[in-house]
């Protein structure tokens, strides 16, 4: 799948943003006044910035409000609802804390649940697609939520919990990669079933419909980076897990904590890039790719 920068930015930024909002909603840490303002501002900037970035991917962003209509059947529509609800509830919760110094705990819990639900709905947009075996797997919902929770703890300064969970996240990610490879290799959709000509013999793509590319080959038969996948996986784990853990284990300093967050962010972005670049859509079979 083509790794569109707008979608990668969206899933990275909003994942971390909603993760931070989740922690703030649960009261980790319990903040007030200016400190609360800054924490919430970062959370909303990341989550909202991600959502705005996602609209750059649309052909007709001016019609984006129509995407609230099909929540009964569409995960993308559910994501729109969950994101709007999470922002609204967390906005109210944050405003009460910042301006009136009143913490309504239950409002925070609801906001935290909606924030995590938003990340879950994002992941389901990918997981529901049978056409991409690597996504049609248990790992996107589990990993998207795990990255949000761990990234949220990291940004909320919950160092003692964040360190062991970062390590667990690294292990979970490696297990997911291995199992995704297995799932993709075991896919029962092949050029033989795609053309139905497998009953005669071995099918090979002889000629494409045209000499140039098209929307399908640009969007779904992306294959530039697969050869660098292994290197990128290692870089992604080092940046997202190893570097932050080392920095957090050193004597605490705000600059080190900031570096840990930046490194984690870069690692997650690399992971999301791979999430798209490695995913193979079954339509690429028709094009002999």
């Amino acid at each position: 799948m083509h790794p569109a920068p707008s979608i990668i930015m969206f899933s990275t930024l909003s994942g971390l943003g909603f993760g931070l909002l989740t922690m703030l909603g649960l009261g980790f840490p319990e903040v007030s006044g200016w400190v609360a303002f800054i924490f919430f501002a970062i959370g909303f900037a990341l989550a909202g910035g991600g959502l705005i970035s996602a609209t750059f991917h649309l052909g007709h962003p001016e019609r984006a409000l129509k995407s609230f209509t099909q929540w009964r059947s569409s995960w993308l529509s559910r994501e729109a609802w969950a994101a709007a609800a999470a922002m609204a509830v967390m906005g109210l919760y944050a405003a009460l804390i910042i301006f009136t110094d009143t913490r309504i705990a239950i409002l925070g819990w609801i906001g935290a649940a909606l924030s995590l639900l938003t990340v879950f709905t994002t992941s389901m947009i990918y997981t529901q697609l049978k056409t991409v075996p690597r996504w049609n797997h248990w790992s996107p919902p589990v990993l998207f939520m795990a990255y949000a929770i761990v990234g949220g703890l990291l940004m909320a300064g919950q160092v003692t919990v964040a360190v062991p969970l970062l390590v667990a996240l690294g292990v979970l990610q490696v297990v997911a990669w291995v199992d995704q490879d297995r799932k993709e290799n075991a896919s029962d959709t092949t050029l033989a079933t795609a053309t139905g000509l497998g009953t005669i013999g071995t099918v090979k793509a002889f000629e494409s419909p045209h000499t140039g590319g098209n929307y399908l080959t640009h969007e779904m038969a992306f294959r530039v980076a697969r050869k660098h996948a292994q290197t990128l996986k290692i870089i992604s784990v080092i940046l997202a897990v190893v570097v932050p853990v080392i920095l957090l284990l050193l004597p605490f300093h705000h600059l080190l904590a900031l570096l840990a967050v930046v490194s984690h962010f870069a690692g997650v972005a690399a992971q999301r890039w791979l999430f798209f670049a490695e995913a193979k859509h079954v339509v690429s079979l028709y094009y002999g790719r």
Partner: protein
Amino acid sequence: MTSLPTHTEKSLGLVIDLDTCVGCHACVTACKGWNTENYGAPLADVDAYGAEPVGSFLNRIHSYEVQPDTGGPAQLFHFPKSCLHCADAPCVTVCPTGASYKRVEDGIVLVNESDCIGCGLCAWACPYGAREMDPSEKVMKKCTLCVDRIYNENLPEEDRQPACVRTCPAGARHFGDLSDPESDVSKLVAERGGFDLMPEQGTAPVNKYLPPRPKDEVPEFDVLAPYLEPVAEEPQGFLGWLDKTLERIG
């Protein structure tokens, strides 16, 4: 609503004969022509005469080479591919705006272009590559089964079928109601063993493909052979002299 109908009154679709298709791309041209000049956003071409031309098409012809398991030379098949108007169309349910829908009256899967936000998720959900985002209009384009031809009473009756079917010079494309077992297309599918593409994807496509007929078996020998004079094994005349001479030298 982008929920799929539980039942459609008809299942209009195409039957494509892989035995007959000659790969001329006439259906591609007819489709692009009709659907550019009529219903919906035109099918754009960008950089048509430049280095990287790209455009939207609703129908494309691939070619596949098959090496038979039983031995013998490889066979070549031309393979037209367009929307299969699936009964369980995954492109419909993923749509966040309701722009993508399947009609109850005839089972045609359509896009309401004024509701399409151009997110591209329906194209991701389709295993067949039947949907393409128009590079100029930025809305999703797909085969409409020429919905503006098949019911069009301003056209002569023989033209009330999809442009690709009407134009095919080889008779490789057939149009009809596949939910009616008595229709010509259903009979054709039953007789020739029509099959689904990617049945394991669970999309229940309406369009069917007819498999290539088995190749004729040419007998190894001629039935008249025993009555013919045996062919001289040894070269005669000048060639015979040359053969002997060369053998002596060699």
